[in-house]
Every structure is written in C-alpha cells, then in structure tokens.
C-alpha cells in the first residue's frame, strides 16, 4: 500500500443509478449517516433515460471509502459504482460568476476573461457575468484573479468526471466488482 490507510484524501466516485425519486437521498444518506461531508455531487440523465449518472467528490480515508463503496453497491437503485480517483479521467466543473466592472477596470476584467477563454453571458454598466468551464485548478485560478475586482456572486455545478478511453472504465469497474466479491481486502484505491 502506498498511502496510509487513515490518510484523508479526495475521492471521485461515479455512479450509475436508477432514474427515480428518492435515489439521491439514499445515496447522500450513506455519506451523511457516517458524518462525511460531500464536497460536490452532480446528477444528470444518461443516454438511457431510466438511468442517471452521479459524480460525487468526497473527502475520506481509504477504509471509509471502501465501506461506502460496498454500501453503495448494496443499494437497490445503484447499478454501477466506479471509483475514478486513480483512474485516468477528465473532469470539469462549470462556474457562473458575476464580477464588478467599473469603468476603470472593465478592460482588465475582459482581458482576464479572454485569457481563460470564458464566455460573457451578461453585461451591465457595472458588471460582467462570466461562464467558465474547467477543472478545479482553472476554476480556482480565475476566482483568485477576479477577486480584487469584487466578485458579487458565484454558482458552481460541482464536478463531473468521465474516464479516458472507452475500455478502461468498464474493465476496471468489472475488476473491482469481482474483487469486491472475492477479496474485499484487495479493493485498493491507491494501487
């Protein structure tokens, strides 16, 4: 094992679930009943309208995540659990941000927005509203850069993530499931 079992890390878990009411609270309940805070959770329908996909980002230690993943598997509404943490994956988040733009600073705000390839989705004489997508570090960076101009409001979607390549996800997922059934100790998140 590379990491200390008690070390708290951020995990990114993708779930395929039945698209019906109550599922979200069942899933989030697994975390909240153990006292763990979900950093972000996003849900949307998949190509199959009876199935939704969730991306959950949570801070926990490895034993906790192992237990939570097993418990997630147990939920009747959960079709698949995919731990993307150590998987090659692409992740994005979207941010809408309204920043003050007084006559003296408008140009500077625009330049930053441009560098980050953001879209301006609303303009008033005193503000710009930007739409930004990117991974966590990009989102973090633009917020820091715009902070001096007076950020008035932000709204974030939470992270969505998808494995790179087409096979990797399902192979690993299968392997995990199998491990889970034969050798739970070997279900590693840092291997």
């Amino acid at each position: 094992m590379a990491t200390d079992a008690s070390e708290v890390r951020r995990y990114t878990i993708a779930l395929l679930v039945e698209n019906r009411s109550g599922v979200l609270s069942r899933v989030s309940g697994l975390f909240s009943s153990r006292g763990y805070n979900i950093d972000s959770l996003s849900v949307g329908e998949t190509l199959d309208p009876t199935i939704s996909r969730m991306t959950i980002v949570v801070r926990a230690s490895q034993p906790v995540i192992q237990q939570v993943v097993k418990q997630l598997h147990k939920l009747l509404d959960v079709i698949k659990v995919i731990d993307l943490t150590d998987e090659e994956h692409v992740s994005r988040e979207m941010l809408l941000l309204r920043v003050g733009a007084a006559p003296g600073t408008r140009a500077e705000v625009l330049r930053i927005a441009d560098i980050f390839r953001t879209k301006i989705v609303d303009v008033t004489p005193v503000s710009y509203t930007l739409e930004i997508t990117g991974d966590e570090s990009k989102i973090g960076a633009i917020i820091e850069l715009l902070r001096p101009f007076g950020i008035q409001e932000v709204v974030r979607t939470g992270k969505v993530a998808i494995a790179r390549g087409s096979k990797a996800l399902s192979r690993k997922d299968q392997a995990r499931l199998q491990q889970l059934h034969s050798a739970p100790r070997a279900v590693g998140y840092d291997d």
Partner: protein
Amino acid sequence: MKMTGAQIFCESLKREGVDVIFGLPGGAVLPVYDALYDYVQRQELRHVLVRQEAAAGHAAEAYARVTGKVGVCLVTSGPACTNLVTALADAQIDSMPIVAFTGQVPTHLIGNDAFQEADNVGICRPCTKHNYLVKDVKELASIIKEAFYVARSGRPGPVHVDLPKDILLKQTEFAYPDKVFLRSYNPTVEGHPGQIKKAAQAILKAKKPILYVGGGVINADAAPELRELAELTQIPVTMTLMGIGAFPGDHPLNLGMLGMHGAWYTNMAVISTDLLIAVGSRFDDRVTGKLDAWCPEAEVIHIDIDPSSIAKNFHVEIPIVGDAKHVVARLNRELRQLDDGSWKESRDAWWQQIRAWKAQHPLSYEWSDAIIKPQHVIQEASRQTASLDPIVATDVGQHQMWAGQYFIVNKPRHWVTSGGLGTMGYGLPAAMGAQVARPDKLVIALLGDGSFQMNMQELSTVVEERLPLKIALVNNRAHGMVRQWQELFYNRRFVGIDLSVCPDYVRLAEAFGILGLRAERPGEVTATWERALAHPGPVLIDFVVDPEEACFPMVPAGAAVRDMVLAKPMSERPEEAKARAAKLTGF
C-alpha cells in the same frame, strides 16, 4: 380481472404465501381493512390486532425468525408509521426479513401537511433494506412482489411499502408477476470455489481453530451444514447472541456465547485461536471488545452473504461472499476430499487447553438461600423444559445476557432476541409473533421488569389471540443493566434506574385476564415454574430476584476481551473504582 388497490394488496399477500398480518388500523389504510374483511371471513388471511405499532413490527420479526418466512405488518399513516420505526431499525440490524406496509394520505395531499401525514418513506429509508412509495395502482402488485423478494434474498431485512389512500381505492387489472427483475440487485449465493478450497486448507492446517457463528447461519438454514463442519474436524463452536441455536446448546463441541458477557473460557479460546472461522457473524463491538487486542494471532476466514460486512472492522485473510448453506456445504466436501487426519494430534491439545480453562473459571454464580438469583430462574426453566425444545424470547438487559448464558437452546429458530439494536420492549411482542407462528410450541418469554413496562399493553393481544405464553418477569425492581454499569463504572451514583414504583404484576396479569404467579424465595422457583408450565393458558410469573446481582463475566465496554472481569469487585474503595472507570473508554 379488475380490482381495487386494496384487493390487489390482499391477493398479492396470498400469492406470497402470507397467512398472518400483525397490524393496527387507521384512516389511511381503511380501504385495506375493508378488503381484508372478506379474506378474514373466509379464513384466508389472519389479522392479529396489536395494541401499539412497534409490537406489530416485533411480532412480524419473530414470526420471520421462527418460520424462516417473511413476516408482515400493516399500520396506518403518520404516528403509526413513526411508532413502527423502532421495529424496522431492529429488523434491519438483525437481518430479519419483514415487509411493513404503512398507510399514507392520498397522493394529491402528500407534502401538504395533511392530517396524519408524515414523510414515511423519508423516515423509514435509513432503517430499511429498501422502501417504496406506491404512486400508481398499476405498480402495486409488482412492488409487493419485489418487496418480498428483496426482504428474503441476500442479507435479509425489512422492506417498507407506503400506500397512499387513493391508490388503494383505484382500480386496475390484476396480474401478479411471477418474476422479479432488478438489474442492480443480484446477491451472490455461491461462494468462490478457489476461496472455499483455500479455507479448507487453512482449516486442516490450523492448530487452534474456532468457529464463530452468528445469526446469518440461522437465516440461511445452514445449521446442519455447520454441525457437519464442526464435527468433521472437531472444531469448538461459539455463537453470538444472535447465533444462539445455530449449533446445539448441549453439544460437546459447543462453547456457548462469546463476547461482552460470554464465558471466560469461551473468550479465552477465541482470542487464543490461530484460525477464526466466522460464519454469518459481523464482528460486532459487543463481541470483539477493543479490536487491536482481539484474536491477535488469528488468520480469519469470513463467510457472509453481505460483502459490506466482510473486513468492515477486522482483518480477513479468506473472505467468502455467499449463502452460508451453500458455502459451508461446499467447504465440507472440500474438507472430506483433502482430509488426511493430520490435524488430530494438535486438536487434542487444543481441547485439553480449553477444558483446563473451563475448569479454572466455569460459568457460575453465587447461590443464596435467602433471595432468588436471576440465573436460577433461567436455569430452572431450561431444565424443566429441556425435552420440549421451547422457543425462548427475551427482552433486553441483564436477564437477556443471563438467558444467553444459562438457557440451553438446541435448535435454530428457537431463540428470539433483539441483538443489534438492543430494543427494550421487544420480548413480549416477539413471543407473541413466535407463538402465532408456532401454535404447537411451548413459547417462553423471559422479560426484564423495565423492558416489560415498555410494551405490557400487549397482554391484551395475548389474551385476545389465546396465546398460551409463559411469561417470566426477572424482576429486580430496576433497569438492572444500567444499574450494573453505574455501579461498576460510575462509582455507584445511581440515577434513573429505580423501578420500585411499579404495578403489582400478579394483579396486573389478573386485570388482563391471565394467570398471575409470584415467587419470592429460592425454594419456590421450581414449583412456580412447574405450575406455570402445567397451566394451559397464558401465565405471567413475577420472579422477585436479587436486585444487586450483576451479570458476569463481563468485558467492560471498550476494554480488551483479555481484561474480562470475572466477578463483582468486593471491597473496592471509591477512589479505586473511579480510577478504574477513568481508565476505560467508551462510557
């Protein structure tokens, strides 16, 4: 044929082979009761009216425990559902398959703070294996089918179905599905052959193996396979509180209950083992005590239907996910094939060691000629009924632990207790459920005076249903177990434990119309039990026992099993007691 939701409910239950419903009516479920009328008239379904909803749940749990079938309860909306929650939580943690139906306000009123509305599905969600809100009468039959399937398959558990009133009144074509398809739910039944083989090899190699057996063996009906496993290679067997009955209590390989109130020699054997074979048991903290000091030398085989139980809080070298009956049968075949008898010598040494431990500190209590010892009450009941294989139900507290220690249960499904949740008030309704399920059997309820007072209204149900229960109050005029903890770990600062203000239990029994007996001297115990057992109807016996008696041995909570306390410290000074309490965690 077109039917109303309420009729579909009754028909579906019949298709599931249900013969009895434990329930209590109310506005939201009246359509069901109305439909039920015909089925009750035709004696196709039986309705047992309880006096408080939790009792319906506990009775259904016990019914499931003793029959192996799914237990059913039916209550109305709002307060009825919230009353039922305790039983759902109890069934969840002890893996009891029940299906609980609750009434709900009509769908158009849901979320409007209607009369007797509660978010039943939301409230029950964390206490159930799964739950449903029926939103369309067309879904009702398939939801009921699914509910029964989910309750009994995999790791069994409670399933809750919320029934809005308008759905019960709407009509649709009735067709009961014959299959359940759930793409996300496929419990593993067959164990991994490679892992099973590994387990067999480990068992043959082990010098000091122990079988650590839980309620899962009973749920899986794996007692015969387990017995074969133990006998094949002469492995000592110890059971959790929930596992009692999984292995014959009087079998020479039986070491009795382990854990917090297990016998000293049992726990010594467990922590000294080099191979712990856990079957259908979940390494509860009441079993393991302080984890890092438990079974330090052991390799661990864990057989369980629930993957999330395995390696949850203890290391496991050979995990086997699967149904205990299947896995153990297969394990036995492997053992027969591989067995070369090489284990025999070391096993003799192992048994010698265990027998020596047993001789050193057998399970015992101090006899008194002046006052009845609670253990005596239990031992005597066990002795007098040994040939009858009675079903024993208990409440929660000291008497429960004494029953676990001193009542000899020889068969699976003959022991009914609340293990995981430790629910006071469980015993009487559970005894009712057991007697309804097995009218042919002697059912004994061993209750604490505190626990009894939590559900004593059910005596009415006992009388109404003519259940010939033998109810014994182990009456120490206290919340005995709490008293014991305050005495040992809180410097005898007794608060909230005194139950000396209580009804005259004999007259209480008589008020309900059942026979009341009392025993106050040790010399009366035998005759009182004889009289109770000879009486054809229900009896309540008030055994007035020593209020000072404590349940030993005991592993203090949070302590290592090795630091088990054998008897009450006799002359401890207050400072010493305080220092000892401070050293222990978990209080």
